[in-house]
């Protein structure tokens, strides 16, 4: 049984970059990916901003070598691109060398195409192109990614709203720890859709000025899209192949707030439990955490609940923290993996990223997020992801120093 799980590859596509390097450069430059809606027609265009991946679906098709194919959803394409980058980053050329799984996550799956189908279908049940609806389910994008990478053993998908892809990382780690897999590609993918845009809009939690996480005057989140994947490998594989280790997965925790279907509890019960479990599994103390990549959506409810849970754990010694959703938007099912990749970048480059959109501290909290990028000694990063249904998750990623093993 492998006691340790290592991250050996990362891949990402999001509003601030088409790959890891571009994303890192945008983070360093403080460049937001939030802007006007361009990908589809909606009455909210020009009113509500979004963080779109700066590639059309046609460009994505070309990018993954599927130009002209009509059976791929944007969600699948984003996932294929990011997962392939992760595999390359881990230096894996022969996927069959070890028992390899794929655990992906998504909240809307192929909804970007189903909503087009549905408009025709509603006018006449015999209408609507079937090719637009056949890939509706969340499993579709996962199987497209699996076949793009050549994985056929353990392939599955998680959907726990905005915590989905951290949960993929947790399940993948457990499969390695129990020796069921030698390595596993974990992550998530979600495209922006009118369905989610209108859904969040009915909840009145979309900020028309772009999100302002942890700011006193925050007025909601900004939807984003993207995909991110990480390659996890067992200690044995890493040692045998002399792999370059990007970080170690040292702990993770999952809990349910059991308070309300969409709102977080005022004392942050679920968030507190998830973070506590993650820190306990990593055998660390709260003061060992050097940086928190908070969930920080920018809604009144989340940031208050999360902020209080953080103070309950860290007391007066809250480590530097930031929400990077001011860069990427809230990428829903991909968010946990997007932020895990950003956390790996923080460890690798020893830099804390700023919390875009912040100006006035929240009156309920005794601390404020990081507002300028700065270098710091970072050994351990805590990354939070919380979602509808009370689903709360947290993960601790640690810097690997040669000789630690």
């Amino acid at each position, binding site marked *: 049984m492998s006691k340790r799980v290592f991250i050996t590859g990362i891949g990402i596509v999001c509003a601030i970059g088409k790959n890891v390097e571009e994303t890192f450069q945008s983070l360093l430059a403080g460049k937001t990916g939030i802007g006007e809606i361009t990908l589809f027609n909606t009455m909210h265009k020009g009113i509500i901003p979004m963080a779109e991946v700066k590639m059309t679906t046609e460009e994505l098709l070309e990018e993954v070598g599927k130009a002209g194919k009509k059976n791929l959803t944007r969600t699948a394409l984003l996932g294929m691109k990011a997962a392939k980058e992760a595999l390359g980053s881990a230096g894996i050329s022969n996927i069959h060398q070890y028992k390899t799984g794929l655990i992906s996550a998504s909240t809307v799956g192929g909804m970007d195409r189903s909503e087009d189908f549905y408009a025709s279908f509603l006018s006449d049940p015999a209408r609507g192109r079937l090719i637009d609806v056949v890939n509706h389910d969340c499993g579709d994008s996962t199987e497209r990614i699996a076949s793009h990478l050549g994985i056929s*053993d353990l392939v*599955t998908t998680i959907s726990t709203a905005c915590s989905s892809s951290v949960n993929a990382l947790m399940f993948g780690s457990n499969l390695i720890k129990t020796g069921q897999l030698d390595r596993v590609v974990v992550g998530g993918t979600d495209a922006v859709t009118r369905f989610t845009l209108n*859904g969040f809009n009915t909840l009145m939690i979309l900020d028309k000025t772009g999100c302002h996480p942890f700011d006193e005057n925050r007025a909601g989140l900004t939807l984003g899209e993207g995909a991110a994947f990480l390659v996890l490998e067992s200690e044995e594989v890493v040692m045998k192949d002399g792999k370059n280790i990007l970080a170690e997965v040292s702990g993770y925790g*999952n809990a349910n707030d059991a308070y309300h279907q969409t709102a977080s509890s005022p004392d942050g019960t679920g968030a507190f439990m998830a973070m506590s479990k993650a820190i306990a599994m990593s055998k660390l103390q709260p003061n060992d955490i050097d940086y928190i990549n908070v969930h920080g959506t920018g809604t009144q409810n989340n940031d208050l609940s999360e902020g209080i849970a953080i103070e309950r754990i860290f007391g007066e010694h809250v480590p530097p923290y930031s929400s990077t959703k001011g860069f990427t938007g809230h990428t829903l099912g991909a968010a946990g993996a997007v932020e895990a990749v950003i956390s790996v970048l923080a460890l690798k480059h020893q830099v804390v990223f700023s919390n875009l959109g912040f100006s006035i501290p929240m009156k309920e909290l005794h601390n404020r997020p990081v507002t300028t990028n700065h270098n710091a000694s970072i050994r351990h990063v805590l990354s939070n992801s919380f979602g509808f249904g009370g689903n709360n998750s947290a993960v601790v990623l640690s810097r690997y120093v040669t000789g630690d093993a």
Partner: protein
Amino acid sequence: MTNTPVYINGLGSVSPQKALLVEPLFFEANQLRCADPGYKEFIPAEMIRRMGRIIKMGVTASKLCLRDAGSSSGSNMEREIIPQAIITGTGLGCMEDTEKFLTSMIRNKEEFLTPTSFIQSTHNTVAGQIALLIKCHGYNFTYVHRGVSFESALLDAMTQFEMGELSDALVGGTDELTVNSFAITSRLGYWKRKPVDTKNLLDDRQRGTIAGEGATFFFLENYQNEHTYARLMGVTTFLKPASEKEVSKRVHDFLATAGLTTNDIDLVFMGLNGNPRTDQVYKFLAGKDFADTPLAYFKHLCGEYHTASAFAAWLAAQVISTQLVPGAVCLKSSPKSTIYEHVLIYNHFMGNNHAFILLSRP
């Protein structure tokens, strides 16, 4: 296959059947729906009206399961169970609410929308609602991978039992059939065009199968009590096998991890659904690897859906516990009296996602 024992100590099901083991229901239909099993008993009245059907089915099946587990602990007192984890699987999630929100978004041109159906459309709504209603702060996961959604949930639970992270878990599978999802999948050729007598489902020569739905829950624990139904030995999933031979090889490999061969299997539940094209692989295994093994089937009772294998596991657990195979599921009986020690479930969804689940006598 896990070395840590995992026992099924509670069962709950909402299905198109009412009292299957006593009086199986057969239909003249190409789609089977769950009748209201008496939601009022399990869900607060003010919530029933707003909840989508899959949520009602899931919550009810989970409460039936916890009640069953609570009353089966041997003592006279019912124990009230708050599980350490709630892990569910669903192929399509909350279709009714998804369709409802999509329809009003399109019809009203993105105006005058209300949030209820959007909130309930997320795939993890059932697991979230169960947690909310029983105040369960534990691990909460939802798998959404087509025909192996339920198996993924089982695998997750077993993995954590083995790691010592869990000593009990509520695990289930839920899927609902809606008017529109049936219409769309009919156009995709999933279903038989004309209704069939479900009693003779396997003899029907029309293409496709019959649609179904259901919610099935299991309460798993790491110890056995006097009402334990069965021991959950293992589960495995795989994608798009290249040939029938590959499936055959995989079943041998899977059983070998439990130290078993096909000869040790006393009954195989097969996902046969009357679709001549996709039933072929079951027939291949029945003729080759399990030529002398009793066989059972179940989709004529619950229809085809992504988490139908949970219904089969529910049946298999009861076969082991009662040592009886209900006549309605029996496809090939044993020539001699059999002790049902090891029962295997082999299921695939549309030939794409395949899975084995092995249950044994505790």
